[in-house]
């Protein structure tokens, strides 16, 4: 397959990844979307989850953890604008696990309090999800 897509993964802080790839598989709120060359122009939201790209005749796959954001496809260029993203090789699993434990503890504390903490719980849930995604992706490299 000769045709390729240019895939760019951008976070607010920097460009994480650019490469010519054959397929991008992204987590969207309605399930995974696979994007191949010649895809119609598309803008879609991303759900927290695993994003992967395939290249080199599908022999090489790279995994990324994304925490949400959106993705735009236009003329064989895929721009992933992630709130936060990390390549599987760069994830610090220990750190993610520790963060996860801390957040879980905090949530327990919050739930016991009668006060209105819905907002804080929501942000904890999001953080927790992000930690889980990171751990999951990191395990892929093993």
């Amino acid at each position, binding site marked *: 397959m000769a045709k390729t897509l240019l895939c760019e993964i951008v976070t607010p802080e920097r460009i994480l990844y650019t490469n010519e790839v054959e397929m991008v598989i992204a987590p969207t709120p309605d399930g995974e979307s696979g994007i191949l060359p010649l895809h119609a122009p598309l803008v*879609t939201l991303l759900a927290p989850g695993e994003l992967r790209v395939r290249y080199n005749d599908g022999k090489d796959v790279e995994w990324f953890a994304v925490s949400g954001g959106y993705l735009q496809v236009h003329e064989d260029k895929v721009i992933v604008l992630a709130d936060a993203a990390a390549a599987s090789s760069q994830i610090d699993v220990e750190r993610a696990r520790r963060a996860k434990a801390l957040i879980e503890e905090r949530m327990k504390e919050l739930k016991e309090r009668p006060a209105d903490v819905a907002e804080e719980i929501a942000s904890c849930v999001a953080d927790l999800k992000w930690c889980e995604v990171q751990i999951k992706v990191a395990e892929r490299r093993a």
Partner: protein
Amino acid sequence: MPNLRDIKRRISSVQSTRQITRTMEMVATAKIKKAQERIESARPYALSMMEVLGNVARYVQGATHPLLEEHPERKRVAIIALTSDRGLCGAFNANILRLTEGLIRDAEAEGAEAEIIAVGKKALSYLKYRGVEPVAEYRDISDKPTFAHARSIAAQVISAYSEGRIDAAYVVFNRFKNVAEQKAEVHQLLPIERTVVDVDEEPLGPRPEYLFEPSPAAVLEKLLPMYVETLVYRALLESAASEQGARRVAMKSATDNAGEIITTLTRSYNRARQASITNEIAEIVGGAAALEES
């Protein structure tokens, strides 16, 4: 006559001050570069986001969203003041605080209340002195702001605005013009200006048919808060770079001034030394003449 020892002591004190200011100048120069790089690397994200926002806006004509709606009355405005945590950076903080003060007064003149979100220790200490209680404070982030900080600041004004607790939000920060120049500016965050989503139809010619998932409105719903976050993040980054720029200029002039003081002091030291020698000779000559006479 100035005491020789006193002058010498002052010279050495000014010299050590100069050493400190020179070091700070060099540190600031190094930090400007890093801060500038950070601004640069935030640009691709901001640009792509604006592009997508423009695309979406073309599909959602006459978009409505709580963040776009102007509130009929201005009863309460939020002002985010970005200052530094450390001093010795010239008028950097003074400019921000003066602008903030102006905004507060404008709001009060309209009969609205102002609430302040203070970023940086300098804003906190100023507000404390003024007897104003900030609704939120952030410190120790001005040096290395991250997107998470921007998100948390933005989330506050976004939720306050959509719940109707505030009717406008502004950010006051130093725009980084170049390494030697910063300009304190006020930007309106909320309501989001309509120009952002009202795009001219014609000039682009045939436009690509975009698919939106789950729907254009849902994408817009997510994009607008992100737009605000990106604006705040950019302001934080610019402010960090400006702080270093301002510090470098301030420290450079301090170093130059110290050099001048040292030159003047050295001159008066030499003069005093010369005077004391002349004095001694006169005394010796006088003494010898007195001996000869006797």
